[in-house]
């Protein structure tokens, strides 16, 4: 047993798991990090990121075989030759869609941290107070002031580039210099500012790409090939950032191929004693023990682990006493926006390929802006010149055609909306009693959908996008709305929410499971509402904050 005993166990190695490992090892705790998938080593295992793009045999396309094996990944842009090995094998790990649900998973070291979009925004009190002000769901047990110092802390280490825009609803942070807007975006920003009298803003995307080197990492080289794996460590991932720091302490043990099947709950101490794992390769079961456990398996799988734990005490699993475990699942709804063409900049070109674009922060239901729905939405977008995959009038084949396509085409601009989804008790996940995965483990059933508030918001998202482009002088404006299945935003949240009352929430204000205070959940599962900004930076901050609390409680003998 001694060799299977650590001070802390971290379940999962993605953005929040990596942070938990870094913080706990940094505070001197012997820590075991469990990853259910393969090892995925920085640089060495980046299959295409270190090669020129023309060496990918299908130049990004996926094969018929991959299309058949990964139908969920093929519901959108995630299906790219360069990263297919990073996505979860859908045949081995199925899930049930009671209602349409798109779940893009990466079961490998680092989780989705090598694949993420890297957009990094702080929440504000407009977000933390929204539930309470509207009497919706439950109140967050924390406010901006509780998390602000932790945003500072994680931004400094992760390296977030951005501009200080001075917006109360999108607080500034500890930023590296921003990634620049291009000339068309600057022009549009100026026109929006003037027309909307400084009530709407087009700002530099705030992104976890380094615009200056930080210790151990090189600055972004503007290749725009992040998710293929960056040999420069130019963006934040577990591999480039938190893992090397955790390893350097000498306190970290990483065990890949380790599917945590349950948390071992001790009825007498009312705490977790450790975890049970199934080795994904050998099918052997092992137990590991620790004083504290950080559950960072991603929102849905963290709920899954809890549902499978302590079922002899609570039928619905650890944390189910509130009746909220697996409920209130949220996401950001998107797949809609507007685009158009821009004239007058034909003599202006771009050098380099950015890992981001512009951001238009929320304006709906803020200050004097009132809508027929609650909460808000933001937009991510960019202006660029058409590339070779365009049609050229009058030219069909031949040398002139080729030479014309080799040059940049018209300027265009497009933006995609990301809207807040309210927490609804009946948007939920549960264990499917009938189906099992490759290892004979129960699988999840998804039962969640957009409701009236989100649908009303979607109408506003497209019409406001078109309005803004129109005001900015953009031509040939078209809007699109391709519909949104829950999960497709890849921002799953809320399945084990934080709250002030154990009767209505799974976690307390320090991310402790009310029913087992030495178990901390700090990934998307903990979210009480969803805001409309990308959530990962908030998971980082909540994780660092919870680790600090956990270690101080441990020292005091409270857990």
């Amino acid at each position, binding site marked *: 047993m001694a060799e299977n005993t650590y001070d802390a166990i971290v379940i999962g190695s993605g953005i929040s798991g990596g942070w938990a490992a870094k913080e706990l090892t940094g505070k001197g705790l012997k820590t075991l990090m469990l990853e259910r998938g393969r090892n995925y080593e920085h640089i060495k295992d980046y299959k295409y990121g270190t090669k020129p793009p023309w060496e990918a045999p*299908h130049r990004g396309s996926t094969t*018929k075989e991959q299309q058949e094996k990964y139908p969920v990944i093929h519901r959108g842009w995630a299906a790219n030759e360069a990263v297919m090995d990073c996505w979860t094998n859908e045949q081995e790990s199925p899930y049930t869609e009671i209602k*349409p649900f798109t779940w893009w998973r990466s079961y490998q070291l680092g989780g989705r941290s090598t694949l993420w*979009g890297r957009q990094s925004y702080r929440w504000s009190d407009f977000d933390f107070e929204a539930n309470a002000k509207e009497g919706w769901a439950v109140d967050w047990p924390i406010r901006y002031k509780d998390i602000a110092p932790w945003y500072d802390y994680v931004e400094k280490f992760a390296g977030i580039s951005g501009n200080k825009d001075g917006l109360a609803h999108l607080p500034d942070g500890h930023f590296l210099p921003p990634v620049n807007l291009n000339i068309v975006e600057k022009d549009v920003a100026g026109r929006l500012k003037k027309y909307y009298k400084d009530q709407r803003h087009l700002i530099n995307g705030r992104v976890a790409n380094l615009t200056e080197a930080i210790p151990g990492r090189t600055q972004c080289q503007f290749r725009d090939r992040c998710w293929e794996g960056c040999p420069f460590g130019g963006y934040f991932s577990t591999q480039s950032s938190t893992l090397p720091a955790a390893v350097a302490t000498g306190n970290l043990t990483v065990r890949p191929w380790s599917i945590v099947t349950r948390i071992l709950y001790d009825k007498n101490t009312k705490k977790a004693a450790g975890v049970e794992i199934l080795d994904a390769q050998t099918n052997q079961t092992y137990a590991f023990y620790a004083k504290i456990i950080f559950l960072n398996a991603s929102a849905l799988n963290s709920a899954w682990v809890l549902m499978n734990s302590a079922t002899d005490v609570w039928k619905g699993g650890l944390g189910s006493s509130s009746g909220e475990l697996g409920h209130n699942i949220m996401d950001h709804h998107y797949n809609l926006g507007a685009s158009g063409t821009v004239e007058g900049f034909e003599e202006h070109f771009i050098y*380099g390929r950015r890992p981001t674009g512009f951001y238009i922060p929320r304006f709906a239901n803020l200050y004097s802006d009132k809508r027929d729905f609650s909460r808000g939405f933001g937009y991510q977008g960019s202006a660029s010149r058409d590339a070779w995959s365009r049609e050229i009038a009058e030219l069909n*084949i031949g040398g002139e055609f080729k030479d014309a396509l080799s040059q940049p085409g018209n300027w265009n601009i497009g933006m995609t909306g990301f809207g807040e989804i309210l927490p609804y008790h009946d948007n939920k996940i549960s264990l499917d009693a009938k189906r099992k995965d490759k290892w004979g483990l129960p699988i999840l059933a998804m039962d969640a959908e957009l409701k009236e508030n989100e649908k009303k918001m979607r109408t506003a998202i497209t019409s406001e996008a078109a309005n803004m482009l129109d005001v900015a002088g953009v031509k040939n404006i078209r809007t699109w709305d391709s519909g949104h299945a829950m999960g497709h935003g890849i921002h799953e949240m809320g399945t084990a929410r934080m709250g002030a009352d154990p009767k209505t929430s799974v976690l307390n204000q320090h991310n402790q499971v009310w029913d087992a205070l030495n178990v901390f959940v700090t990934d998307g599962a903990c979210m009480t509402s969803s805001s409309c900004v990308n959530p990962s930076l908030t998971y980082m901050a909540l994780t660092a904050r919870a680790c600090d609390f956990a270690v101080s409680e441990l020292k005091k003998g409270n857990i």
Partner: protein
Amino acid sequence: MMNRREAISRVAILLGSTVIGAELFVSGCTNAHTEQIVLSDTQISYLNEVGETILPKTAASDGAKAANVGLFMKTMVADCYSVEERKVFFSGLTELEKASEKAYDKGFISCNAEERKKLLTGLDAEAKEYRKKNDLLQQKEAERQKTSQASGKPNYLKKTVPAHYFAMIKQLTLLGYFTSEAGYKSMGYVQVPGRYDGDVTHHRA
């Protein structure tokens, strides 16, 4: 995540329609054993000639043959095409020869550069007509999908009508060329730009 829309348009949108074979999964596994799957070396050389007519070497840059688009087509047609699409593609090679015989009483390879260009320009027009007709069918299919999704039933299977064979050849030529080393070079591609400047006076990608 950033630039999702851009990512889609960059990878999938080609000549106003999705890249053939890179569409959402279309089920249709018929008896594949009797069908040709892999292009022969002769067919690869042939398609390099066709490709060179579509994107020839110019003073500015190399052409499709230098990028070996024929070999690229071999990989794509074998790995990424559906059985249905492959059928259209391979019978298209015969169709192309027939069209050449009809116009010039000789096969494509025996035609001179001018004849080749004229022939393929005609086929390109034919393919565009064909697409126009199919767009209407696709639109109806899209509406059906919408109704089906609105009813709450998961339905992501997208039935598409295979493109005209020349559209396939042209798309593969463009994709094969502009994503090859020669093609990237033609666009002034810099592998490691090192910085971003959103307003320069000369184009370099």
